[in-house]
């Protein structure tokens, strides 16, 4: 009999312990709530994928495939951009369709080829979920709704800033040992012969513009980009300039993920006509080959690698 009681008490401890161990921590603010929602498949039609399924933390919140798979393995049409370093961005998505992080946050949830969950149903699900109902009440003092859902996801994404790369260490602290001599030469090329700085400038190495780099030829490359939003012929083939922080982690590259490595990207910019001949439009900055030597390409690549935040370097060691 005693043995039975002991076993009963033990089982009770295990059950109570398991309850605590597997209970989600209660979020104290919008950022913590947003973090939970970001990884919760409750926001997809099939309850099988979450934002984090495509925005993978170990790859700077980007994906490793050219285009990500959404619900029912539906193929997306554009490469998943990093969710990091967005707080200073002026527009979101490759075609700039969203002007705020709040607007951005809801679009993939409702997109039929991504998470495929109409926002009204997403909100209903959260309202019916005991945990989230309580969490939203605690954080926003109201039931889950479209606005506070967007706000929580956006606030979480605003925390994903990276400012501790070897490049930052070099420039901010004058730590000459933070980056290699090759990377320093690469930075000079980036600002000079490579012309990269003409588009990739600012805190995240992109500016607010949309540019056409020649990846729309109307034959095989059919994504019209920004023009799909603005309906202006002048915007045909234009895309948001990609930020470069943590770029070494976010392969493959370009709006369609057509380049697998940084070297392929550099080779493209070195002589775009060789890789995509006769595009519908191509920026005049790319009208002539750069004639970079192989060493110069190495230097540029090494510079780009210095933009990887140390949090990732530490994890990979």
């Amino acid at each position: 009999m005693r043995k039975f009681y002991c076993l009963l008490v033990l089982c009770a401890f295990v059950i109570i312990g398991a309850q605590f161990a597997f209970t989600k921590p209660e979020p104290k603010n919008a950022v913590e709530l947003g973090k939970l929602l970001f990884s919760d498949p409750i926001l997809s039609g099939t309850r099988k994928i979450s934002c984090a399924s495509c925005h993978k933390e170990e790859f700077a919140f980007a994906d490793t495939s050219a285009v990500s798979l959404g619900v029912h393995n539906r193929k997306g049409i554009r490469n998943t951009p990093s969710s990091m370093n967005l707080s200073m961005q002026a527009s979101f998505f490759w075609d700039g369709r969203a002007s705020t992080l709040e607007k951005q946050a809801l679009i993939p949830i409702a997109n039929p080829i991504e998470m495929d969950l109409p926002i009204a149903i997403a909100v209903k699900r959260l309202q019916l979920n005991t945990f989230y109902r309580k969490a939203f009440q605690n954080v926003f003092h109201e039931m889950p709704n479209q606005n506070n859902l967007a706000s929580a996801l956006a606030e979480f994404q605003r925390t994903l800033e990276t400012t501790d790369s070897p490049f930052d260490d070099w420039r901010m602290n004058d730590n000459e040992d933070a980056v290699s001599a090759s990377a320093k030469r690469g930075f000079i090329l980036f600002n000079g012969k490579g012309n990269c700085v003409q588009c990739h400038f600012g805190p995240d190495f992109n500016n607010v513009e949309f540019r056409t780099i020649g990846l729309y030829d109307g034959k095989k490359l059919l994504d019209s980009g920004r023009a799909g939003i603005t309906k202006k012929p002048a915007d045909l083939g234009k895309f948001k300039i990609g930020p470069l922080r943590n770029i070494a982690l976010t392969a493959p590259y370009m709006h369609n993920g057509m380049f697998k490595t940084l070297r392929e990207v550099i080779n493209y910019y070195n002589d775009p006509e060789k890789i995509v001949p006769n595009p519908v439009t191509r920026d005049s900055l790319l009208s002539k080959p750069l004639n970079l030597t192989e060493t110069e390409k190495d230097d540029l690549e090494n510079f780009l690698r210095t933009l990887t935040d140390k949090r990732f370097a530490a994890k990979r060691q």
Partner: protein
Amino acid sequence: MKKLVFFSLIVVALCSFKFYDEPNPLLGKWEWKKVYKKGPMAIMLLFRNNGTYDGFANQKSFVTGTYRLKKDTLYISDPICNSKYEGTYKMTMYGAQDSVRFDVIADTCKGRVEGANATVYKKIKAVK
């Protein structure tokens, strides 16, 4: 006579010798705080004594360029605008040279004018 020549040479040498360069009041780190997209943004400028400078927005480097000073005028260039072109700004120092204001004199680089004209930066004291 020998002594006179010797002392004359010393006087000439002393007169032609510049004991110290005019100190560069911009050297070091300066900060300007503003609001961007409803959030705080700290713009920091780091002026080095080798004539280069960096600009940082919320700790992120956003511009690297060169500068020179001529009395109260700052000549500044960067590869985003055009590294061969210098914008000129009047520089006004305040207090114990711990604040500085930049006002554009001439600059064809619109972005730089928008970011720099009529801004007041405070010196960041070095932490020991």
